[in-house]
């Protein structure tokens, strides 16, 4: 009875005007995306139009040229790229080893050790900026890209994710590899790591976006163009006291977010799923 009544109402539903809910959903979407669209508009129009908005004002690329000329964005890009690739690679190695140990090795006091690791989920490097700065300077890491990345390498979050994933891999696969004569290293590299690929992808995307966007710790630990990532460069560039005009600031802002934003628009599904996988576990 119900199925036929549902079928009967379907065509009528399709012809209805947009419901209140659809309207609200779209209104909220427009409000949410508007700031970005406005920045996009501002970046491609002459500064004079900042004050009087005209949708079809002449387009220009001058703002991007100005921004590029006024700050070493090429260097910032390189630094960010080195930082992000270095951090993610190091995290993969360190967290794989630790996650593997927690998942498959008998270690005395393992539960307590694991709880100790999880503390880092709450006590982030940026909360401890004062002492971490002292330690980084003691190690000679101030103003280096290594100094920006190193505190994040032993990520509790990565260790946790990989441990969970390794635990779900059936022991039989490992036993089979052992019978074939594989060493522990070979078991890790040939059985566990390949099977954990989706976790690596998810964790990698989350980590890339986190480190691309990170600001406070990089700001504290860097003091020159040679090591500053994009966010810090942008923060200094667009501070109100530098007197750079709005149009140039929006161009610079777009420059800094463009690679990540383009990647997001192309691989939207993967990004959303990665945040989800990494968050919900």
């Amino acid at each position, binding site marked *: 009875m119900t199925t036929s009544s549902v079928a009967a109402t379907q065509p009528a539903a399709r012809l209805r005007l*947009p419901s209140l*809910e*659809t309207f609200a*959903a*779209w209104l*909220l*979407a427009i409000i*949410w*995306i508007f*700031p*970005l669209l*406005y*920045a996009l508009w501002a970046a491609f129009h002459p500064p004079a139009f*900042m004050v009087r908005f005209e949708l079809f004002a002449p387009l220009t690329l001058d703002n991007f040229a100005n921004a590029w000329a006024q700050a070493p964005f090429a260097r910032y890009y390189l630094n960010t790229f080195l930082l992000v690739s270095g951090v993610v690679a190091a995290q993969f190695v*360190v*967290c794989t*080893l*630790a996650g593997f*140990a*927690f998942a498959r*090795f*008998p270690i*005395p006091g393992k539960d307590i050790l694991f709880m100790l*690791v999880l503390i880092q989920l*709450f006590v*982030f*490097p*940026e*909360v*401890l*900026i*004062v*002492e971490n700065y002292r330690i980084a300077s003691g190690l000679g890491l101030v103003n280096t890209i290594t100094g920006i990345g*190193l505190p994040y390498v032993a990520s*509790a979050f990565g260790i946790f994710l990989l441990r969970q994933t390794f635990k779900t891999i059936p022991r039989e696969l490992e036993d089979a590899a052992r019978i074939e004569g594989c060493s522990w290293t070979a078991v890790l590299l040939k059985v566990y790591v390949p099977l954990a690929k989706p976790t690596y992808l998810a964790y990698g995307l989350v980590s890339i*976006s986190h480190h*691309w*966007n990170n*600001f*406070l710790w990089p700001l*504290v630990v860097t003091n020159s163009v040679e090591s500053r990532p994009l966010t810090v460069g*942008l923060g200094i560039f*667009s*501070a109100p006291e530098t007197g750079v005009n*709005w149009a140039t*600031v*929006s161009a*610079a*802002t777009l420059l*800094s*977010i463009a690679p*990540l*934003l383009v990647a*997001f628009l192309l691989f*939207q599904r993967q990004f*959303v799923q990665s*945040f*989800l996988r990494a*968050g919900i*576990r």
Partner: protein
Amino acid sequence: MQLYGALLLLPAAVLLATFAYLPTVATLINSLFVPGFRGQPAEFVGLENYALLINDATFWKVARNNLVYALGTIPASIVLALCMALFVNGRLPGRGLVRMAYFTPTILPMIAAANIWMFFYAPQIGLFNKLLGALGFSGINWLGDPGVALGSVIVMSVWKEAGFFMIFYLAALQGIAPELKEASDLEGTSRWSFFWRVTFPLLMPTTLFVLINALINAVRVVDHLFILTKGGPNNATNLLLYYVYENAFSFFDRTYAATITVVILLVLAVVATLKFAILDRRTHYQ
């Protein structure tokens, strides 16, 4: 075998000790000392730094700001995130576009987001004041007026965070068995009471998860202050972690910065206890 396992843990252990445990302990110790004058060794002063903190009106203002910031951002972004998830979970024309619009702010650096919002808040040429002007109202100094500035910062934070929380709600909604909806349709339950009696209770674990994340962020993320207000006017938007930064790197008072850091660590410890006690009772970590 045990030795091998311990060796695998070694790199992580060394790094965690260097950048998490050691600094935490050092922070606690430093908060009990004052630095020696001209090369003299540091002097143990017990809880004197904490006495300074208690008598520091600015500290209390900053702590209150942070509380207001948390109360302003967390419920608003959670409610919005839930609405967004409900919207894009239903049959909505252009669902992919709408979801993208909600989620995109999450991908941006906080610094970039703050730059964009500066356009809206600027007193002379800012969009908000131009809109007010067009409606015949006089403009507001969104970031310069002590009564409004914290609210302006909060609005931007909500914009940045709601889309992130949305995806957790969306996943949870998709995990709800469709049979429940069918059964309630048979019974003729209204959508409203279905939401409150079925959906909302089932989303409780997600709400707790989101709440914990939001609490941590309220203490930890201060990037936008560097662009929007620098904690001003007159500390009206100063938050705990920004106050630590100011003391350590602008006023060069590392001891006082350490003392405020201890307060932040205490807050985070409470949040952590909350998480382990409530959220992970379902043996997540076993």
